[in-house]
């Protein structure tokens, strides 16, 4: 899931002041931001209180089912068209994908209420860790299911670097060195030490990403 964290409130306020907004509509997200505890109903209502305390009128709010979904968000905004029409601006408590979907669906200025930080594993309730960068060129087959691109702070494919000490990472000293973990697991699985991985193909992850499975269904290219 996409992990988000609250954005500096002063920046949100400044965004609204910059467009001279007096009234605001708030949109949350029923998926990742709800699980992350940043953009569900509870957080949307907290934002409403905060905005009102800061002197803004809140014309309405909604928690879209999946705010990054264009069709769903378009429908959601139509359902709330009265409240939206009355608002000078919209604050979205979702990841950046959701913010943009809302911005495409309404005529007012739309501002992010959260920072989007990473694709996260849910380690346990409320604890998230980044383990995949979605690089488009997976090396987990060679690295015993531990991603060096993400979990080595330098993103080195081959390691450890010269800072490893006692099996610990030099950058995040309380963490085990990813490359030591990789080598250990490979050896435990009888796969020998890691082979040298070639330079990464960054053309596999050129921005902006786009996938259309409809084309391949029709027998076309991906």
């Amino acid at each position, binding site marked *: 899931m996409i992990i988000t964290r609250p954005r500096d409130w002063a920046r949100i306020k400044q965004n609204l002041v910059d467009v001279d907004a007096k009234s605001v509509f708030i949109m949350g997200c029923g998926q990742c931001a709800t699980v992350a505890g940043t953009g569900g109903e509870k957080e949307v209502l907290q934002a409403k209180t905060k905005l009102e305390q800061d002197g803004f009128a809140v014309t309405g709010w909604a928690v879209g089912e999946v705010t990054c979904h264009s069709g769903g968000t378009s429908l959601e905004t139509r359902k709330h068209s009265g409240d939206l029409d009355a608002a000078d601006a919209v604050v979205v408590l979702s990841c950046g994908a959701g913010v943009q979907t809302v911005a495409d669906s309404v005529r007012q200025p739309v501002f992010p209420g959260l920072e989007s930080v990473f694709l996260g594993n849910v380690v346990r309730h409320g604890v998230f860790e980044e383990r995949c960068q979605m690089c488009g060129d997976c090396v987990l087959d060679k690295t015993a299911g531990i991603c060096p691109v993400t979990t080595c*702070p*330098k*993103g*080195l*494919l*081959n*390691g*450890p*670097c*010269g*800072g*490893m*000490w*006692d*099996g610990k990472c*030099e*950058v995040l000293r309380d963490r085990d060195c990813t*490359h*030591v973990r990789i*080598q*250990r697991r490979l050896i435990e699985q009888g796969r020998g*030490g*890691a082979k*040298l991985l*070639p*330079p*990464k193909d*960054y053309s596999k992850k050129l921005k902006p990403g786009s996938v259309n499975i409809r084309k391949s269904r029709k027998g076309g290219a991906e």
Partner: protein
Amino acid sequence: MSRLRDALERGEFVVTGEIAPPLGTDLSAMRRSIETIGPYCHAINITDNQGASLHLSSLAASRVALDMGFEPIFQQTCRDRNRLALQSDLLAAWTLGLENVLIVTGDDPRSGDHPEAKGVFDLDSTQLLEVASAMNAGSDMIGRPLKGGTDFYLGAAMFPEAEPWDIQMIRATRKVEAGASFFQTQAIFDITKLERAVEVMRPLGVKVIAGVLVLRSGRAVDFINERLAGLMVPEEIGARIKGADNAASEAVALATEQVRAAREVADGVHIMTLGLDDAVPEILRGAGIS
């Protein structure tokens, strides 16, 4: 031909030193350091944005050393440049007359003076060694022939004291396979760990130059243990420096002992003075190296 390569291949015990280029364009202090240690060194490492902090480029500073009549070891880290820039700088280095290159990963930007910077690490140090080896064979990393190639003497870093050693050993072996002809190690405090590294590396045909750090003060000991990645000063050595009446002369005495010990084991020493450049002749003389 590289004097460093020549000496190491002849089996001579070599001495290398280390200079950080300035933050700015005034080269006078750097020149003084080069003049001080240069006459005692086979070659001098010129660091590349050392400690992930801004300095004048190693490329330009290496050329300054060369123009002064001393042999530089151009250092290249993987932190600040992508594969295009790294290759471009390697080509530049060769045209500037720089024959020795030490290829290292580089400290993470968040440990330096520009913590907001993006760490590039497009290639890692082993991959970059392969790229430089390809250049020595006449082509760039995608296999296109170079109009005029290189003949670099390639080095890499190793940390014999860091555990787990079995994993370090695999890593060091990969670096040799990728084209490293010599290693410069991080600071050595335990000679038996240097021995175990040399034992494994020597049969691979690679030379090992042992790192010696002049621990000039108690503050330097603390700084290294707290701030420098991967350099851990053992407690008894820290206590020896901190307990001394004159920490600097104790540091020189310690470095002298370490050079003497390394001489029995390694192919050379790499002396990091932490600014105590004047101590180099005394250390070498004390260790029986003229």
